[in-house]
């Protein structure tokens, strides 16, 4: 920056000294003034007078052009595509004996090419170069010998499934490493889920799991754990090699997470930010309840974090979690409840495993891991992957010992009985034609059966006011998606009021 200012100043300096230097130079240079210099001085004075009269700078070059007999000097305006060199020759300049440089000092034209826009083929080439350079940077400075990431996601068909699963899908599509996505679906494999995840282009293992997802959150958590264990069983059967992480479909993952988990040896833990926010309740966010925090009242809005706790030498000494006891009464009980959904003590999402723990030969495996078949049998509630270990102190803390939060846990669901169009396609178009109460939109097509879709949308505004006395509240804690779900949910209700206006 200094150089820039210096350069600018240099230019300003040369301006201020251009006028000042000529008297200096004239005293320095020669006591004898040749007639040519006197002539140019006179011309200079004349031009100054003309400029004063005209009001803009009148260039001495014009005189040069007038008096010169050189052929066709074209203008040096900015938009000329032809190269121009008009050397400003100082009279009395001695030609140099050595090789004449091709580079001429003086005023040159500003070259502009006729078609100014970038060529799209070249832009694509530039992007390819950028991509390749970044790939090289990653291989040089990033993770060396990256391992395959195996993401296990339990899901089931419901209103918010598309929303959540699209988020996870896009996160996984952006991961630079090889990826295997194991989608475990409660209630068996369905076309709904399959068509959604097919678009990702990832390597997917779509597995079904018997059992319908229950309505109570408690039971749902338990079923999800079972589904994840089922996913681990798939990893073992197929002997997939890589790093297993648990990507719940409503969680948010940062791309740095996928680079950080490459550092795991056997089993690691990351910190999970818990976003337990209820849309409608007045109680606001959860507070991090801990011994030291009770005094600090101003930290009320801190996001609670679950993860490994380390001592000063970065060894694992315990776990950060938070006490959910005070909130249990107010927490959500069933899916679609308007209350906060609480996580369990330690969520599955915060753990990553080396897949070899599951299927490696007994000799090569560490002694502290249990067989996957033993875990989860006899109705044992597997709350977290720690149940897989006999000794929990071997867990490696990742993300600078849990200080860096790279993923967030959230549970947001609509009511279990809420309806939504299959695959979010309204097909066939519904044939309800309800005339709009308002003036139709200026560019609305005339009333035709095929345009019933727009009419249906317009109807929503009418039925809004009567929404209050309609069906019971739906949980609308997702702020952004409020609008679309509301429209379509209201639409469902309006079908019952087909006769009304």
């Amino acid at each position: 920056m200094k150089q820039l200012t210096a350069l600018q100043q240099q230019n300003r300096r040369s301006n201020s000294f251009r006028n000042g230097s000529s008297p200096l130079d004239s005293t320095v240079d020669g006591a004898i003034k040749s007639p040519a210099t006197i002539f140019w001085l006179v011309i200079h004075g004349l031009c100054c007078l003309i400029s004063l009269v005209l009001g803009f700078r009148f260039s001495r070059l014009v005189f040069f052009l007038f008096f010169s007999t050189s052929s066709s000097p074209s203008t040096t305006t900015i938009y000329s595509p032809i190269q121009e060199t008009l050397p400003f020759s100082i009279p009395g300049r001695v030609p140099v004996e050595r090789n004449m440089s091709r580079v001429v000092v003086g005023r040159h034209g500003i070259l502009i090419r006729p078609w100014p826009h970038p060529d799209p083929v070249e832009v694509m080439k530039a992007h390819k170069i950028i991509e390749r350079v970044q790939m090289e940077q990653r291989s040089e400075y990033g993770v060396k010998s990256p391992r395959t990431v195996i993401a296990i996601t339990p899901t089931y068909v419901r209103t918010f499934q598309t929303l959540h699963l699209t988020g996870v899908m896009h996160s996984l599509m952006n991961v630079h490493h090889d990826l295997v996505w194991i989608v475990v679906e409660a209630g068996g494999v369905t076309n709904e889920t399959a068509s959604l995840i097919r678009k990702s282009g990832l390597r997917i293992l779509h597995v079904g799991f018997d059992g319908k997802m229950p309505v109570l959150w408690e039971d749902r958590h338990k079923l999800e754990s079972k589904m994840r264990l089922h996913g681990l069983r798939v990893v073992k059967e197929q002997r997939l090699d890589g790093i297993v992480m648990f990507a719940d479909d409503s969680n948010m993952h940062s791309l740095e997470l996928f680079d950080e988990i490459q550092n795991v040896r056997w089993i690691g833990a990351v910190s999970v930010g818990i976003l337990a926010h209820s849309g409608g309740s007045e109680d606001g966010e959860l507070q991090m309840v801990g011994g030291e925090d009770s005094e600090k009242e101003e930290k009320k809005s801190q996001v609670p974090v679950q993860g490994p706790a380390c001592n000063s030498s970065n060894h694992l000494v315990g776990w950060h979690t938070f006490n959910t006891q005070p909130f249990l009464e107010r927490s959500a009980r069933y899916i679609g409840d308007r209350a906060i959904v609480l996580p369990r003590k330690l969520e599955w999402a915060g753990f990553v495993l080396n897949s070899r723990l599951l299927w490696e030969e007994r000799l090569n495996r560490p002694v502290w891991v249990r067989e996957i078949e033993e875990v989860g049998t006899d109705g044992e509630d597997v709350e977290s992957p720690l149940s897989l270990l006999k000794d929990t102190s071997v867990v490696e803390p990742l993300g600078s010992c849990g200080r860096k939060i790279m993923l967030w846990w959230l549970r947001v669901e609509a009511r279990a009985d809420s309806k939504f169009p299959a695959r979010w396609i309204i097909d066939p178009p519904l044939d309800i034609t309800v005339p709009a109460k308002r003036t139709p939109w200026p560019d609305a097509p005339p009333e035709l059966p095929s345009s019933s879709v727009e009419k249906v949308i317009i109807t929503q505004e009418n039925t809004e006011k009567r929404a209050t006395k309609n069906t019971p509240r739906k949980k609308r804690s997702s702020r952004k998606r409020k609008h679309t779900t509301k429209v379509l949910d209201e639409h469902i209700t309006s079908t019952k009021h087909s006769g009304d206006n």
Partner: protein
Amino acid sequence: MWPCYLLLPLALLGINVIIGVEGLDHHSVRTERISGSAGDVLEDNPVGRLKVYVYELPSKYNKKILQKDPRCLKHMFAAEIFMHQFLLSSPVRTLNPNEADWFYTPVYSTCDLAPNGLPLPFKSPRMMRSAIQLISTKWHFWNRTEGADHFFLVPHDFGACFHYQEERAIKRGILPLLQRATLVQTFGQHNHVCLNEGSITIPPYAPPEKMQSHLIPPDTPRSIFVYFRGLFYDVNNDPEGGYYARGARASIWENFKNNPLFDISTDHPTTYYEDMQRAIFCLCPLGWAPWSPRLVEAVIFGCIPVIIADDIVLPFADAIPWEQIGVFVAEKDVPYLDTILTSIPVEVVLKKQRLLANPSMKQAMLFPQPAQSGDAFHQILNGLARKLPHDMRIYLKQGQKVLNWTAGPVGDLKPW
């Protein structure tokens, strides 16, 4: 030793040695060795290959000037001061002038600063002349060769022509008394009056600590294709355009201001250094003079320099193979800059980045305090050592005079 003797005749024939890929160094980062036309000279150690005698001039030539204006230590011409300080404590210095190969005269000719911080070159010729008169009368070594085994640092815009305006600098030419001496300067352009044969071009001074303090993690992806910050039109001195940078900078602006691949503007962002580290190509066009500290910054930050200055001679051109490191674009080809840059094959781009990542390359562009091995001070000494042994013809017979002590503008002859 014998491969060197094989290489020397090859170098004389002008054949470049092919760069060998060094593979994995002791660093895990893959860099490439830089082999210029004379071999791996960047890592040569000058100690033991030459001896330099530093003349002790009265402090009015150096210390007093610096005391008057300490800004001289920060600007881009500070190399002359730091070279003096380096030589005073360097192992190549000898206190016995009879065994010296080179003689150094510490004159801070670029330290007469205007209030805005830029050096005024008007008194520099007189100062230099006065210094040479002093050393030629007090010691006999100048008269022995009329300065052919002396070297001077002249880092100003046009070197020893001592003027910032190119036309006036050309008119003055190199100071006649310095015609036989070796000039160590930042300016370099082929077939130009202000560049003597045998001069050593050096990079301008750029503050190393400031640049090191702005380093970002190397895995930050490089997402800017072309980067440039600076003036395109010099509205104060050249409002119509066409004079400044021979119209090249204006041409860059007019052609590429709307091109999304080009991040160019006249802004002064605080993240200038960080942005350079996120760019693949950094433009280094000429300004009023062909050289600029942008080249040094581009090399330090790993951004491939795109040099737009016809016939420019880059720093340490005999030691650093600039064609393999940077991209050279003729000024007349500026409107097609995007075509040129996008048609560079990706492997070539990666190779250039590997060459730039070589720490000896970065070190050679810097003037760190205190001096470290392989830095620009050592490269200057290497350059001087490569010119040894002196040709016997430089030694003049008793009473023989070659230089014209009264040549040049009349004002130069006034005492300082």
